[in-house]
């Protein structure tokens, strides 16, 4: 995902001199290509995330479109109040690009995990929250971000993700994507759980259940219409995310269901409000935290 991101950015920067990249000393083996081609529009501000956000906002207030790149906890939480005021309140054209969605940094430990980021970013007025599920979604959403007004948070996994969509998929900021139709169950995934969602749908199919798979690469604004359509079909709705139970995709979908005032069978698969003290890969931690347990 991060390679796709930087390639999209380089392509755009060739024709749009407003594109700027700021990093608080992250991006080794990722950002070099951008730095080499656009040295005047690349700035490593040092290990100083608060300043990174303020500088980015100052550039944006001067007409630039600024991408701030780091590991998720550092580009969202370390500098949260700068994000709140300098980006959200002032509605500046800054894009936070965080890598390491959920448990992607597995054995690095919980300091590098990102399980609260969707919740806190979603709570900010003016902030758009994009959590692409594969490189195709990354490409589409990044390409649309160049014309977007206001701040965006991009939650990327890391690298080497499988492409789920083909190039013809219609992907828009703020819109759900129906990956597969199904009449018995609706599974909604966001971010790096799309691939696992696809596996589950195949497994259900072997059991004779036709599950719809919906990828939700924008958690805010959530695609209310798409969720309402699922509610009206009166089939069980399941959300799947590598994020805390509180405040993420499941919460966003639950809010739509609650507002709709219609009873529907609903289940959230998410992290059960705990930090991981286990050591292991993303896949192992998913397993230990119950994220790979498919509801029957």
């Amino acid at each position, binding site marked *: 995902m991060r390679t796709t991101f930087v390639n999209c950015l380089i392509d755009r920067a060739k024709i749009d001199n407003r594109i700027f990249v700021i990093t608080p000393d992250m991006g080794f083996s990722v950002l070099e290509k951008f730095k080499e081609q656009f040295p005047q529009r690349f700035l490593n501000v040092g290990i100083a995330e608060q300043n990174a956000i303020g500088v980015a906002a100052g550039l944006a*207030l001067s007409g630039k479109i600024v991408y701030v790149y780091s590991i998720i906890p550092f580009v969202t939480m370390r500098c949260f109040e700068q994000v709140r005021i300098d980006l959200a309140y002032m509605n500046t054209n800054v894009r936070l690009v965080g890598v390491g969605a959920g448990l992607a940094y597995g054995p690095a430990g919980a300091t590098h995990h990102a399980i609260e980021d969707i919740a806190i970013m979603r709570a900010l007025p003016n902030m758009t929250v994009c959590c692409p599920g594969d490189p195709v979604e990354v490409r589409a959403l990044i390409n649309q971000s160049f014309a977007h007004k206001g701040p965006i948070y991009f939650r990327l996994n890391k690298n080497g993700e499988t492409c789920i969509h083909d190039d013809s998929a219609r992907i828009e900021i703020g819109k759900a994507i129906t990956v597969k139709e199904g009449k018995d169950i609706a599974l909604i995934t966001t971010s790096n759980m799309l691939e696992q969602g696809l596996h589950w749908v195949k497994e259900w199919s072997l059991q004779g259940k036709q599950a719809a798979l919906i990828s939700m690469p924008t958690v805010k604004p959530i695609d209310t219409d798409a969720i309402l359509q699922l509610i009206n079909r009166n089939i069980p709705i399941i959300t799947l995310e590598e994020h805390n139970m509180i405040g993420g995709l499941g919460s966003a979908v639950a809010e739509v269901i609650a507002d709709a005032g219609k009873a529907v069978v609903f289940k959230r698969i998410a992290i059960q409000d705990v930090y991981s003290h286990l050591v292991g890969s993303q896949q192992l931690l998913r397993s230990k935290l119950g994220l790979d347990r498919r509801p029957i």
Partner: protein
Amino acid sequence: MTHRSKSSHVGSCLSICEILYCLYFKVMNIDPHDPHKIDRDKFILSKGHGSAALYATLAERGFFPKDKLEGFYMDHGTLPGHLDMQAVDGIEASAGSLGHGLSLGLGMAIANKCDSNPGRIFVLLGDGECNEGSVWEAVMLAATLRLQNLTAIVDMNGLQGFGRTCEVIDQTNMTERWAAFGWEVHEADGHDMGQLEKVFGFHQKGPKAIIAKTVKGKGVCFMEDRLEWHYKSPNDEQCESALRELDGKS
């Protein structure tokens, strides 16, 4: 304004009036009739609680009608207690939480340098505000980038939210601190127009800091150097007395 709205921070405002006047009437290249002109100088009030002083200066300079000042800090008002850049023309950045302004100004200075835009950036910080670590993140980067178009002014009134600055976090060597990080530092009496104009005019090869020695509540004897005037608003009698004194009639 603070009397009418019964709001805080009148002391913080009175310590920066001459600095604002000097910038908006003597130093900065600005046009109130074209507030967004691309090559303008920009000012950021990082100590956003001094908003009333900035609003009054902007109105006096012609950025908006003075009657808008009557809606400061009021129900259905025009001007919030802390800065909202959407409220009126002339406010370059919203502010109210300390330690943001220098980074914003730094970003603007980098943008201007990148675009060969001659506009200069001025950022006014409080001395208490310099407790914030983010200020020093920006100080370090600005010096590294040798930005000639950035000037920080530190309002050294010696008082902060809950005590004297030198007792809370000892910053009596403020000048040395900024210099140690690579800034060109000048000291001035923050209430002396001649001194201020002189230091603003010094040629700079890198970022410039002006350590402005000021008095909180300057010009009103019962407010000067008193912490309580960070919070209190003057009552009818105090307001009348203060205005008389500021008008030189007492």
